[in-house]
């Protein structure tokens, strides 16, 4: 196990000229020993690049990778003693399940007795004990992916286990099972686990710390709660949550806040810088308000959708769309009505140049 420190940048191009040439912009990051992390971001944001740099499949073009303070930038995956599970299940067709699980240990010349014991433990954990002597090639996709997971976990001294969207090919109902399994394994083995995904639910349920990435930048590292309550960047607000945070253009003029053309009083005393701002508020926190209440905006209702456990209200304030979530017990407005929504409150965040204002 290891404490991983990254201080690097990476470009797939030989002579990067501008920011867009970099797959990873210069970043500094620490991964604590024994932590469960997720790298979350849309496709092409650099999360797989970061993972491959950590595992040693890729050498960063700038900077270095440290494991427990030791420079391993140029070390092979084997030297780093890292395990990685890929998006698509990789199994050795001609081997049985047991041989597949034993493969990383056999390659490291671990004594047979120890291999048998380790394979037994891992198979038990993955609920594959009954299939140990089957050919791996004939199994279903999720069983194959479990084998891939098992090969990642079978080495007890592994520095970290990296997952590259490992549940993409798995059926939804099995996804839950496997994710719970991973969580449980993390508790039992206390390994450093780093999980790449573009699915926020997966990231937020799996990891203690989520790294949100976009366009080669890690915009926020934090717990699920922090990402939800205090998105450090407009992108995090958009990306986390379903639907994402509402952002309303605002203007601070001589101490007076104007949001979407309406002058609003700040309910909580707050000092905001002058100039263009953005007001961010989660649909969950947009409550109905009395007309003319401090910090509330008049909105024209466009649509009310039943999403099962809650109602989704889509409205417009000026030209700006705004969405709110309501529980099913509430009396709901109908399209065309004007409702007042409480835009400013304790959960409201203010942004300037896409960054959260303290």
């Amino acid at each position, binding site marked *: 196990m290891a404490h991983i420190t990254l201080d690097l940048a990476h470009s797939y191009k030989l002579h990067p000229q501008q920011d867009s040439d970099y797959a990873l912009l210069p970043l500094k990051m620490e991964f604590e020993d024994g932590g469960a992390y997720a790298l979350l971001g849309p496709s092409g944001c650099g999360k797989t690049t970061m993972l491959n740099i950590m595992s040693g499949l890729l050498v960063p073009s700038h900077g270095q990778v440290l494991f427990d303070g030791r420079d391993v930038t140029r070390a092979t995956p084997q030297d780093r003693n890292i395990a990685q599970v890929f998006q698509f299940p990789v199994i050795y067709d001609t081997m049985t399940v047991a041989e597949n699980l034993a493969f990383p240990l056999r390659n490291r010349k671990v004594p047979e007795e120890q291999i048998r014991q380790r394979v037994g433990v891992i198979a038990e954990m993955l609920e594959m004990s009954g299939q140990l002597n089957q050919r791996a090639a004939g199994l279903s996709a999720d069983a194959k992916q479990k084998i891939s997971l098992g*090969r990642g976990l079978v080495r007890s001294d592994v520095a970290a286990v990296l997952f590259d969207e490992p549940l993409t090919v798995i059926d939804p109902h099995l996804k839950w099972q496997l994710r719970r399994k991973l969580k449980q394994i993390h508790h039992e083995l206390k390994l450093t686990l780093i999980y790449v995904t573009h699915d926020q639910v997966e990231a937020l349920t799996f990891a203690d710390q989520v790294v949100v990435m976009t366009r080669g930048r890690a915009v926020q590292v934090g717990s699920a709660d922090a990402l939800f309550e205090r998105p450090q960047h407009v992108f995090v607000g958009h990306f986390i949550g379903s639907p994402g945070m509402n952002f309303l253009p605002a203007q601070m003029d001589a101490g007076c806040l104007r949001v979407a053309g309406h002058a609003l009083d700040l309910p909580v005393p707050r000092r905001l810088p002058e100039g263009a701002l953005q007001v961010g508020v989660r649909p969950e926190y947009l409550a109905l308000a009395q007309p003319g209440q401090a910090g509330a905006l008049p909105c024209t209702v466009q649509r009310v959708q039943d999403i099962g456990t809650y109602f989704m209200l889509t409205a417009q304030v000026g030209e700006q769309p705004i969405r709110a979530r309501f529980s099913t017990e509430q009396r709901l407005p109908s399209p065309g009505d004007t409702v007042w929504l409480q835009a400013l409150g304790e959960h409201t965040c203010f942004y300037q140049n896409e960054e959260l204002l303290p």
Partner: protein
Amino acid sequence: MSATTKPVNQKAWFLILPVLLCVAFSAIVPLMTVVNYSVQDIISPERRVFVGTEWFAAVMRDEDLHAALWRQLTFSLAVLLVEIPLGILLALSMPAQGWKSSAVLVVVALSLLIPWNVVGTIWQIYGRSDIGLLGAALNAAGIDYSYTGNATHAWITVLVMDVWHWTPLVALLCFAGLRSIPDAYYQAARIDGASKLAVFRYIQLPKMRGVLMIAVLLRFMDSFMIYTEPFVLTGGGPGNATTFLSQYLTQKAVGQFDLGPAAAFSLIYFLIILLLCFILYNWMQRMGTADTQGAGHD
């Protein structure tokens, strides 16, 4: 137009008529002509006698045929034993991408573009002990090499020529097979700490099984029917050392004009190839399904 008055579903028959005609004229009619010859003794264009299976019996007893068949099997086996491993090795050492890959592909494929009899001519000159580069060099090195005089030398020369001509085909097939392996397999192998040999044994070889099956079948059938190259190079000699089945057949049909026995042997030859391919194909298929479905049996 009777076709339009028939029930609609019967029209479909007319659609397969062109195929039926093609197959009839390209395969069935010629084959039946051979069958026709194989059961008759044609004394003159006007006089012919039905002889039943007599030609077949005669051919089966022919010592020359036994020798040719044995020679042929040994040759085809040798071709497979040399070309398949060599092709795999070549494919493994070919660069995977970039301009080097394209250049190497062209160079490797070059020998496949040369017509059969040109290949024979090239080697005939190449191996000559007076002016040929290979023959002269070997003789200069103290080896008394002569493909026209020494039966073993002739046999080996034909084998080397076939290897030179056709190993690239095996290599190209294997190369295609190798390229279709996703990168994740190699990455996973690196993570698992697999050696180069283990990567070959557990990833590359199993993933190449499909193309190797095609390569073995193609090379077996082709080498079993080899005719032009040894004909140009050695003419089947010295003695009968390089007289393979096709050459034996030609000697019978064209050289001695024994149409009856030649026709009978043609059919036997055809059946042998059909049978061997059937066995080979099924064996390899079973190997494949044992790999993927073995789970259910153990």
